[in-house]
């Protein structure tokens, strides 16, 4: 909750220092510093193009960054090291705007695939775990269903269960309700909220401001590739310091 001054307190689970990322000549992240404590819930807000999704995607190596460092559990992210990436990605789960369920596998198999391959999980415990996770997201009866038989909200909840099956320490949520019909947003957010309550470390890029305000411990406002303003949700939403954040917040009420 507090921007740590010295690395004396509890070790950060995600530590980002001077992170810069460009797409060609276009620099989208211009030096990001961020420490995330275990169990912390962080909401990242900002205009589109401010680099918030890119930042999230850097944390599990979906995007390569050019300079700076990023550690998860004190282990550095190394793009060229397949083993290190595999280890890191087991600690960092991700949920996408477009769900990205595997359409050729049933819901249960979607959840079971990665633990089976990466953790050599056996069939029986895998199935038991998958059923448990699906029950947790309220989809126990959908084990044998196919992804395209589900609503968007249900698909997103399966995606959450699938990510949880790897038992990640950090969960990245990239605008996970943006592709949903309004009436389906609530069911997904409730699941995320329950994860937050259970102590999962969450980093979420979101446009759901009331949700961010309610659930997060810290809100980050990104602007033009930088962390422009950061603080507890009440402060940030209640008393924005910079004109950019003020403008951003007021534009939401139009």
């Amino acid at each position, binding site marked *: 909750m507090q921007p740590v001054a010295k690395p004396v307190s509890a070790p950060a689970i995600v530590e980002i220092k001077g992170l810069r990322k460009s797409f060609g000549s276009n620099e989208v992240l211009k030096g990001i510093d961020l420490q995330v404590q275990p169990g912390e819930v962080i909401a990242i807000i900002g205009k589109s193009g401010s680099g918030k999704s890119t930042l999230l995607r850097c944390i*599990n*190596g*979906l995007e390569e960054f050019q300079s700076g460092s990023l550690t998860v559990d004190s282990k550095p992210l190394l793009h060229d090291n*397949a083993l290190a*990436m*595999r*280890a890191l*990605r*087991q600690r*960092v*789960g*991700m949920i*996408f705007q*477009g769900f*990205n*369920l*595997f*359409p*050729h596998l049933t819901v249960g198999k979607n959840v079971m*695939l*990665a633990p089976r*391959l*990466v953790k050599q999980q056996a069939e029986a415990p895998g199935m038991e775990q998958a059923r448990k996770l699906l029950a947790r997201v309220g989809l126990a009866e959908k084990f044998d269903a*196919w992804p*395209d038989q589900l609503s968007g909200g249900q698909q997103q909840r399966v*995606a959450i269960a*699938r*990510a949880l099956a*790897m038992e990640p320490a950090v969960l*990245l949520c990239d605008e996970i309700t943006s592709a949903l019909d309004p009436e389906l947003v609530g069911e997904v957010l409730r699941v995320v909220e329950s994860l937050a309550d259970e102590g999962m470390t969450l980093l979420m890029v979101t446009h759901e401001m009331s949700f961010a305000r309610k659930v997060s411990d810290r809100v980050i406002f990104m602007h033009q590739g930088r962390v422009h303003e950061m603080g507890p949700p009440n402060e940030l939403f209640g008393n924005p310091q910079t004109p950019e954040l003020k403008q951003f917040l007021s534009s939401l009420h139009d």
Partner: protein
Amino acid sequence: MVDFSVWDIFRNLLLAARWTVGLSLMAFIGGGIVGALLLVARLSQVKGVDKAVGAYVQVFQGTPLLMQLFLAYFGIALFGVNTSAWVAAATALTLYTSAFLTEIWRGCVASIPKGQWEASASLALSFGERLRYVVLPQAVKIAIAPTVGFLVQVIKGTALASVIGFIELTKAGTMITNATFKPFVVYSCVALLYFILCFPVSLYAKMLERKLHAARR
């Protein structure tokens, strides 16, 4: 003068058709294996490989199969290796088929949404696992129909092997014509045999396509 019945002609063509089938299978299996290896090489994103494979594809797609057969036949001999027409034809057709198949399959893999790669990557799957368990199972379903369709092209393409002296259906037809002086009858039989070979394959491709559209997955 000896009189040849239509059956005599047909029977001899039928015997030669075995070589057409053999050459087609050879080209398809060989080309499939080489094409698959090229596809994996291309997808692995090793620097330069994608461009090299792209150039390979362009060379084989941009030159006539006939020239490729000539080059294989006379080119291999240039290195002092004594090639039979069979080896040259099988080599040329294998390379030709691999270039087309790898391009067809690349398109099928490219049609799988990027999100599938990203989702499987973020679940810590390795490149091989992503390909094997997530992308290929989806791509294969799309690939079956065009692949089988291309097999028809290969079967007909084997006719060109006749120009380097490989005795398959077309070459046998020419030889029988020279003996019987009945070109129309002979080439009608040749055409009929090609049709008998190709038609079931096209039918199968069509059936697969329909099945694919009917089944949800």
